[in-house]
């Protein structure tokens, strides 16, 4: 188990390097002089020259990358062109809001999605099964921004149950988490259903029933536990989707998170902030996948002893 985790931990190093190369590349693929872009529109020529010297922008690309990644490892992601504050400070203050949103959405999606999937699978072809699967199909087809706006219209504007946006209490989190989680909820429900259907046809389920176990134990312990592996894979992938979707959800609900920051900084061509935000978001994706892989080993002894 420990060896498996260490191996996976080591594997994240090249992945993070690749991510950093992609993020580094953004500034250099963009048309224009990187030094001038880092300086911003109102930078004086001597500012631009200073930036060029500091980041080695007159050096070959691999040296520039070395300087950039070296700085990043020392927690220096540069300064925001707009606010002139360190990028790290900007992203770290906003990260909790995005994390809170993504985790709340994920929890909602896993709890609701798995329950619906199990209920559907145990009542295959019933009205409940058909109904929930139609809902799930609508869930994967609904644009997240539209769902958010419709929820705001219904529950904030008309019913006044929840605030229209912003951050603060749990009430600010309900609608955004539902909006962001709906798509994943639908996918997890579909995945759980099909995985459960496969498992409950196995011989060991028949054995469990034959020896007189209560149906609840058969379904949950013998069925669901064995059906979890493909579901966990989907949950890990969904976290990546949630980080991307958070960008849209934060825009819809005017939440000050990383996603909102990313879009604002693209619009103001604030490249250091764009890079810092993407690094942090992609880094958390890598970390969650590491967690998911560890969870596999826990769930499936075959992986542990491989």
């Amino acid at each position: 188990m420990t060896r498996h985790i260490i191996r996976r931990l080591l594997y994240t190093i090249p992945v993070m390097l690749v991510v950093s190369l992609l993020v580094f590349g953004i500034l250099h693929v963009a048309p224009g002089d990187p030094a001038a872009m880092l300086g911003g529109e109102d930078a004086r020529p001597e500012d631009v020259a200073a930036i060029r010297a500091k980041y080695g922008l007159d050096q070959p690309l691999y040296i520039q990358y070395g300087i950039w990644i070296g700085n990043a490892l020392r927690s220096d992601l540069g300064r925001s062109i707009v606010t002139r504050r360190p990028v790290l400070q900007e992203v770290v203050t906003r990260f909790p809001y995005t994390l809170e949103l993504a985790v709340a959405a994920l929890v909602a999606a896993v709890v609701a999605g798995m329950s619906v999937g199990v209920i559907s699978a145990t009542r295959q072809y019933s009205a409940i099964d058909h109904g929930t699967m139609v809902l799930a199909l609508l869930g994967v087809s609904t644009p997240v921004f539209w769902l958010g706006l419709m929820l705001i219209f219904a529950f904030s504007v008309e019913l006044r149950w929840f605030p229209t946006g912003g951050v603060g209490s749990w009430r600010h989190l309900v609608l955004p988490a539902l909006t962001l989680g709906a798509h994943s909820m639908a996918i997890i429900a579909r995945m759980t259903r099909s995985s459960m259907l496969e498992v409950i046809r196995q011989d060991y389920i028949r054995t469990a029933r034959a020896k007189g176990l209560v149906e609840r134990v058969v379904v949950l312990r013998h069925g669901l536990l064995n059906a979890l592996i493909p579901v966990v894979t989907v949950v890990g992938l969904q976290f990546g989707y949630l980080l991307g979707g958070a960008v849209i959800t934060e825009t819809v609900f005017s939440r000050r998170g990383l996603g909102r920051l990313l879009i604002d900084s693209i619009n103001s061509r604030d490249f250091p902030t764009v890079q810092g935000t993407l690094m942090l978001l992609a880094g958390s994706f890598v970390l969650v996948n590491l967690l998911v892989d560890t969870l596999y080993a826990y769930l499936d002894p075959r992986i542990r002893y491989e």
Partner: protein
Amino acid sequence: MEPRSPSQFRAVLRRFVRHRAAVVGLILIIGLVLTAAIAPVSIAYDPYAIALGQSLQGPSLAHPLGTDELGRDVLIRLLMGARTTLMITVGAVGLALGVGASLGLAAGFHGGGVDSLIMRGVDVLMSMPGFLLAIGIIAALGVGTTNVILAVGIYSIPTFARLARGSTLSVKSEEYVTAARAVGVSNGGIMIRHILPNIMPPLMVQTSLRMATAILSASGLSFLGLGPQPPEPEWGAMLAAGRNYMTRAPLLVAFPGLAILMVTLSFNLLGDGLRDSLDPKLKR
């Protein structure tokens, strides 16, 4: 698994026609394509003509879906928006299918170093969540319709590459491939004439499902202001503009969203139906 003889093709077709949801999806998609094709010649108003005196009107005989904040006819902008949406999605998925399937086919067929090189390249694209990669690409290239096509296309490449590689691996040791090689068909000929047709069915299913994802991603990027720029009619952008008037004219937000939902749903239904008819074993 795949249609090889006319009778097998007929069996697939029969299963597809019986799949009611898939047929509905197909009909809706054909409707969308026709709408997009005839929209420019059939419309009564200019989709760009601003009439401030008629802004934010409700549905009426003259404007069946009302008017937007600049007094433009919403129905006509929705119809014209279908063209933009369709162009972006077909472009993006076409790019991903073309590049991804070629790469996957080459990787699976050649194996060894070529395989490792291509698949590591694909892994690079998968190291970041797709939508974030798309946003990063737009951050680098700038906003606009072409760059949305590129961004959504590039992040969809891995799906097709991995699928094509897996399918190629499973058919390349079939007898007809060995036979083709024995009679001296070149590698390129084998790949294009013998392997490609046999890995098409799963690629077709994935194309339809990916169209659904691409519409959601592309309209999401437009909603964020990273896609087609005003005044070009696009569903995501129309929604973003309409949200400022949501309390006064909620229909302005409702209609473009419903349009996106319906098209996405149609492609999902079609994809599910294709999968079930091509491989009935998978059906539950």
